[in-house]
């Protein structure tokens, strides 16, 4: 037995000794009861402690989740059983009754019952709804270590230190407690009596079997989920397998291996496996069929105390001295491979290889079963498919890594066990060509290239081309174009180029499961509970949540194809808008962005903050409705219009301040003015007006200042306006006469000076005045800046924004990339030049380079061969395949295909007497041009001509034959129908042409079977009859317009005759009806009532379309009154005759005639030696005399 690495630890916690474990059936939760009296609730997927419950006094040994209710139960050394609600996070009630430690507690799967086992030697069943003890099962005479309900039947199994395992029948208990619908008084009495007997005899729960076999106390016992099996584990270090029937139970076998007390055991929920754990610090896995050890897992220091299985998924948990571990026995990732974007091959849990068609969304039946291959309990890891040989390559970690090459059965008829397989050692194996595969051996670090018979063709150490240190890479996913790869580690995805240059790396807190590239180069990956995406630059996000872990295999448009844990193909629908949008943003594909913005509802905080972060506030602006966010974004991208709009809407001082600052920076003083006005920042406003030269507004500001009584402001404004008087006036108002005087004096306003002096009663002499400089001139605006916003900061509107605003057509979007391209081009040219230079420099080395690989020792041998070949056979050209065709076939069509037209004509001439070939030219060319294809081979040489065959599987050059277009299969449904259509819609010229075309096509055609021969004959006859029929009617129409014809008795006679002959050829009945109707009407119009009557009779005899029959009936009724012909015509309705195809006159039976050898059309014998008008290429008719 080997310690395999197959056990995969998914979660580990550190705590004191674990005594009990329970999985939640739906959520990723596990309850752990500890020796330290605590109960922990963990999320094992995220690795977080959700809750803890500390109400027990002393160790908690038993714990269980309710299957459907938000409840769990625990039992401990305080003799108490507690029922808890994890929703309200508190203990609901306590069940008291046990007189010693409670070892295990379990809920019943459907009834509101709890079963508990205790050191008081009893097993008790409780009803948690009415919180009562309903049954006490006594019998064990030592501690009861474990008691469990049967998953379906009314059975209980218990294990005790008295060395026995007992099976109990509790059907009586169920009967008693299942709600009685109607119960007679007697029943009730009987029932209450029965209940009384509980006290003595336990009729509710009777011991059914006592299983003895363990030599020491039994610690754990469990039922098999479906089969009548029991497994138990005891202090005798044994795990025992038991079986029971209705009447008896017996020991089946013992699994020996634990070298210390075995503390727990259980059946695998889906597979034929038993898991056990023990104080020898091991978890062991056993094959329950063969009772052999499959795996064992050892911990260094921790003894295991308890083991539990998840009821649904492949997860187990084991509790030990220092915590709990959640683990899987095997990898669940189904091995799969995608072939040509259309087929998915995968291996199911039953080890069947199946395929799945993406287009048809259909799963194939099992192609081959791998059951017999490899180790039974190790699932294959990878799969590689080879379409050429229809074989698969499967690798598995068993035996230190091995691969197997298996051919899929050709017929794919069913679950055949793969028998012939070629196998070998290796860690990874894939097909690299249709007849080669590569095997990687990590131990020796070599790659072997092997052929399909498993012989190593080449073995080499992979050359180290590039290196990149990435930790713990588990999978590599190549992009569809093969230029990038994603390296998946447990928590990281590293995207690299094919040269192993790191493009980006991202970190996930939860496990990364799988990844797949979409066509645009976006990597979609799945974690335990999400599908996410990442762009090359590392931008990532969530695409959707998952309720179930899946493994992505392919992304196409809105569909994500994946396999779930049970290896079922699934299609998930996603909304790719977000990442497509981000991708187009990264690629600066503005048109696409525009399209996305316009067509989809892409909103949300994440996209906005993303855009902002990426420096595209102007784009983010398009998504936002909230005014304050819009304002922020508008400020950020300098879109003042939007900012003003939003500021007006919100009208908050803070925003106005920011808007003012921003607008000032832009030079947009009108907005600044508005902001200042809103903020009532008069000083700033004044200064703004001053600087823009807006005097009138400045004056108004002065007025306002005056109104407000703000002297400082007034002074300021006056100063700006150079209004001396106003200033003086103001100084006077605030009693600052000295200043007023000074101002007046400085500006030479002597009158004012005087009045001030007078008012203050001071004389000029009393004042000492400083010297005045020249008075400042009033600033005069040179440019009326205030009239418009100028100069403003260059608008930072992006092309994109403009396009959104509809100001520009899509064209302009190109502008930016175009210019960058230009630059790049320039660079390239330079680079080229550099290359050239360097090339010039190394020209000297040419001679060395020319001497390459002469050292190669295989070459001389091959060379010898060449010489050989050349010397014997250079004798020029051989015969082409086309020549072979002519040689291989006596059929004219094949000669035509061969290009040997003359021999073809000779053949036709001989076979059907053809001479007039001109009408056949299109058919000849058609055949010829369908037979040659052109493969572009070496560059600069004309393409290689190849010859298309109809004998696809033939390789014998004496049997190959060319393809013939428009073969019989093709003619009948296409051309013939067209001909019929023409007849029906009265396009007779077209019809005649089509039917002649059919004749020509058959004339030069190939038939391969008797069947086809007769079909061809039928087709020829039919086409011939139609051609004759149509030409008769066409000849009639060529006589002239009805007026002309009616006016000329000869023509009229001929016309009536032709119309009658038109009804003779053997064309399809519905078409004949048309001819008859035509003839009948014409005859009636010319008062040839007898003929008309005969036509009507024939119509009625043929049956068919009601409308025609109706008119025939009427006609018949009319004609029968006077069945006489007004015009004598050469048409005997009672005689049998054919119509001569050339003269359109009757050939009565019994007269000699000529017949076309090909189409069978008939002629008067005088036409012998002329061209058949039907097929247009026949001259010599085979004469048919009256004797025939």
């Amino acid at each position, binding site marked *: 037995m080997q310690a395999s690495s197959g056990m995969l630890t998914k979660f580990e916690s550190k705590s004191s000794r674990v005594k009990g474990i329970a999985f939640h059936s739906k959520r990723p939760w596990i309850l752990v009861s500890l020796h330290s009296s605590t109960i922990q609730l963990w999320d094992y997927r995220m690795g977080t402690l959700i809750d803890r419950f500390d109400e027990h006094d002393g160790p908690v040994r038993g714990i269980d989740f309710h299957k459907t209710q938000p409840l769990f139960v625990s039992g401990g050394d305080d003799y108490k059983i507690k029922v808890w609600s994890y929703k309200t996070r508190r203990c609901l009630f306590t069940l008291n009754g046990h007189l010693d430690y409670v070892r295990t507690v379990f809920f019943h799967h459907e009834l509101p019952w709890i079963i508990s086992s205790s050191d008081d030697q009893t097993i008790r069943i409780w009803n948690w709804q009415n919180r009562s003890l309903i049954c006490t099962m006594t019998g064990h005479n030592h501690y009861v270590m474990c008691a469990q309900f049967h998953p379906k039947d009314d059975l209980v199994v218990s294990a005790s230190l008295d060395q026995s395992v007992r099976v109990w029948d509790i059907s009586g208990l169920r009967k008693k407690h299942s709600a009685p619908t109607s119960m007679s008084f007697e029943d009730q009495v009987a029932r209450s009596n029965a209940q009384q007997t509980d006290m003595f005899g336990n009729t509710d729960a009777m011991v059914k079997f006592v299983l003895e076999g363990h030599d020491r106390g039994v610690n754990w016992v469990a039922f098999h989920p479906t089969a009548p099996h029991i497994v138990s584990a005891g202090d005798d270090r044994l795990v025992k397998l038991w079986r029971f029937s209705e009447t008896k139970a017996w020991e089946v076998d013992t699994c020996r291996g634990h070298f210390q007390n075995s503390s727990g055991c259980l059946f695998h929920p889906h597979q034929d496996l038993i898991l056990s754990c023990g104080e020898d610090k091991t978890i062991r896995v056993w094959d329950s069929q063969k009772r052999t050890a499959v795996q064992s897992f050892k911990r260094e220091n921790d003894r295991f105390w308890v083991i539990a299985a998840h009821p649904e998924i492949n997860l187990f948990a084991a509790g030990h001295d220092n915590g709990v571990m959640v683990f899987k026995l095997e990898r669940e990732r189904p091995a799969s491979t995608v072939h040509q974007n259309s087929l998915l091959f995968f291996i199911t849990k039953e080890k069947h290889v199946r395929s799945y068609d993406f287009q048809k969304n259909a799963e194939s039946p099992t192609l081959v079963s791998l059951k017999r291959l490899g180790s039974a309990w190790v699932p294959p890891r990878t799969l590689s498919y080879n379409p050429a040989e229809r074989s698969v390559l499967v690798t598995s970690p068993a035996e230190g890594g091995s691969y197997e090459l298996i051919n899929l059965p050709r017929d794919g008829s069913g679950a055949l066990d793969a028998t012939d397989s070629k196998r070998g050692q290796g860690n990874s194996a894939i097909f690299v060509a249709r007849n080669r595969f590569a095997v990687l051996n990590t131990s020796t670090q070599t790659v072997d290239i092997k052929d399909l018979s498993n012989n190593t063709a080449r073995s080499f150490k992979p050359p180290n081309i590039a290196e990149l240190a990435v930790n713990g890479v588990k999978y590599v996913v190549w992009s569809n174009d093969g230029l990038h790869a994603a390296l998946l580690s447990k928590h990281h995805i590293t995207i690299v180029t094919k040269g192993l240059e790191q493009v980006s790396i991202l970190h996930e807190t939860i496990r990364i499961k799988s990844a797949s590239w979409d066509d645009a180069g976006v990597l979609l990956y799945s974690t335990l509970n999400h599908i996410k995406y990442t762009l090359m630059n590392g931008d990532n996000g969530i695409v959707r949540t998952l309720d179930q872990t899946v493994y992505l295999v392919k992304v196409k448009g809105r569909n994500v194809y994946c396999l779930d844990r049970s290896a079922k193909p699934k299609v998930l629908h996603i909304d790719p808008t977000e990442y497509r949008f981000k991708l187009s943003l990264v690629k600066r594909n503005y048109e696409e962005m525009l399209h996305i913005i316009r067509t989809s509802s892409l909103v949300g905080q994440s996209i906005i903050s993303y855009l902002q972060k990426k420096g595209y506030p102007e784009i983010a602006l398009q998504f936002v409705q909230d005014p304050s966010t819009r304002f922020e974004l508008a400020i950020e991208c300098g879109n003042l219009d939007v900012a003003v709009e939003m500021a007006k809407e919100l009208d908050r001082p803070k925003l106005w301040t920011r808007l003012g600052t921003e607008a000032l920076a832009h030079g947009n003083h009108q907005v600044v003015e508005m902001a200042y006005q809103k903020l009532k920042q008069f000083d700033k406003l004044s200064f703004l007006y001053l600087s823009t030269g807006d005097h009138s507004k400045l004056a108004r500001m002065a007025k306002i200042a005056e109104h407000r009584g703000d002297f400082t402001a007034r002074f300021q404004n006056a100063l700006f306006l150079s209004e001396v008087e106003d200033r003086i006036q103001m100084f006077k108002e605030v009693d600052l006469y000295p200043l007023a005087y000074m101002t007046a004096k400085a500006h030479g306003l002597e009158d004012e000076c005087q009045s001030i002096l007078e008012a203050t009663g001071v004389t000029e002499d009393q004042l000492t005045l400083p010297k005045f400089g020249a008075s400042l001139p009033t600033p005069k605006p040179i440019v009326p800046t205030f009239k418009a916003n100028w100069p403003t900061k260059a608008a930072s509107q992006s092309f994109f924004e403009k396009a959104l605003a509809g100001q520009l057509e899509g064209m302009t979007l190109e502008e930016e990339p175009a210019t960058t391209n230009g630059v790049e081009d320039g660079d390239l040219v330079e680079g080229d030049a550099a290359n050239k230079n360097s090339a010039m420099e190394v020209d000297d080395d040419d001679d060395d*380079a020319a001497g390459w690989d002469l050292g190669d020792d295989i070459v001389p041998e091959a060379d010898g061969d060449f010489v050989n070949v050349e010397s014997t056979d250079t004798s020029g050209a051989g015969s082409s395949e086309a020549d072979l065709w002519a040689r291989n076939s006596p059929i004219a069509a094949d000669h035509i295909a061969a290009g040997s037209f003359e021999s073809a004509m000779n053949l036709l001439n001989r076979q059907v007497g053809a001479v007039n070939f001109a009408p056949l*030219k299109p058919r000849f060319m058609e055949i010829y041009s369908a037979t040659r294809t052109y493969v572009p081979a070496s560059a600069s040489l004309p393409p290689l001509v190849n010859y298309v065959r109809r004998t696809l599987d033939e390789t014998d050059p004496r049997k190959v034959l060319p393809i013939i277009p428009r073969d019989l299969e093709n003619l009948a449904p296409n051309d013939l129908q067209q001909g019929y259509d023409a007849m029906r819609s009265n396009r007779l010229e077209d019809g005649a042409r089509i039917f002649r075309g059919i004749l020509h096509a058959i004339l030069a055609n190939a038939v391969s079977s008797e069947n086809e021969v007769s079909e061809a004959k039928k087709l020829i006859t039919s086409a011939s009859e139609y051609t004759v029929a149509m030409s008769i009617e066409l000849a009639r129409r060529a006589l002239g317009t009805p007026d002309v014809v009616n006016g000329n008795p000869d023509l009229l006679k001929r016309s009536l005759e032709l119309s009658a002959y038109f009804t003779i050829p053997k064309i399809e009945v519905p078409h004949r009806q048309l001819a008859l109707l035509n003839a009948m009407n014409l005859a009636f119009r010319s008062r040839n009532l007898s003929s008309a009557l005969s036509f009507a009779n024939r119509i009625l005899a043929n049956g068919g379309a009601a409308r025609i029959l109706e008119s025939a009936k009427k006609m018949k009724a009319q004609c029968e009154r006077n069945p006489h012909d007004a015009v004598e015509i050469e048409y005997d309705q009672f005689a049998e005759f054919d119509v001569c195809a050339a003269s359109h006159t009757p050939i009565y039976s019994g007269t000699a005639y000529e017949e076309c050898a090909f189409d069978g059309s008939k002629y008067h014998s005088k036409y012998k030696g002329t061209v058949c008008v039907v097929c247009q290429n026949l001259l010599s008719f085979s004469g048919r005399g009256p004797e025939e």
Partner: protein
Amino acid sequence: MDPYSAEGELINIHNHFHQGQFQEVIDFDTSSLSSENEVPARVLIQRARIALGQAKDVLADVKGETSEPEFAAVAALAQSALGQVDVAAQAIEKLAQSAGDNQTVQVLGGIVLQAAGKSDEALALLSKHSGSLDATALITQIHLQQNRADLAVKEVAAARRWAQDSLLVNLAESWVGLRMGGEKYQQAFYVFEELAQAPATSSIVTLVSQAVCELHLGRVEEAQTALEQALQKQPDYADAIANLLVLTVITGKDPAELTSSLKKTAPQHPLLTDLEEKSDLFDKAASKFSAKAAA
């Protein structure tokens, strides 16, 4: 060491060239190549340009360097591509005497001579090669053009022995396979399909080749898809049009539109010249019969 082999520096550019990815060849970054591979790489680039119809520019480019046999050969190839087949052939014949064991001269010379219809001379020159897959592939093609599939088979089988899974051997084998038929069709199809469907190796050449295989396999619809895909990539690719024309005829439809578009893009395409020739032949042959009839 063979620079075109799997470990060699030129493997990628060489493969690009033979997969028909001419633009990739031209865009190939040659700056990192070691000095002895510069010239072969340049020759490949020039050949790719010629294949893309830039023969005139190439001729101008190498004009000053014709003292080197490689570039003299390139110049001859460019001339040949420009229609001066005889001038080019003469130049090659001269080169063959002075530098007949230069591999580039052999290969390019082979092409030029074959294009000039001097197949025997081409084979003679090519037979001097020493372990060149290019030469092997060319010899195979010439044999096939001469309808000597038997020799072509031998050639490929010999090359297989020392060059195993090389791209060129696979291609040459597929060309031969298209003549042999039967299962070989399918094998050829796999080779081309593998190249055409992988984004890294896909090119219009391989796509058309794949389509031809499918046509030969009787899978008309698939062939049509592939050809239309090819025409989408390059609407004026003569071989794609020609094969689509053939396909149209096979499916019993009217090829007039394709014929005219082929006439426009490649009036010298073998399909057209061949058909014209046959049309004359028909008239001649047919006239004999009507003459007899009249007599």
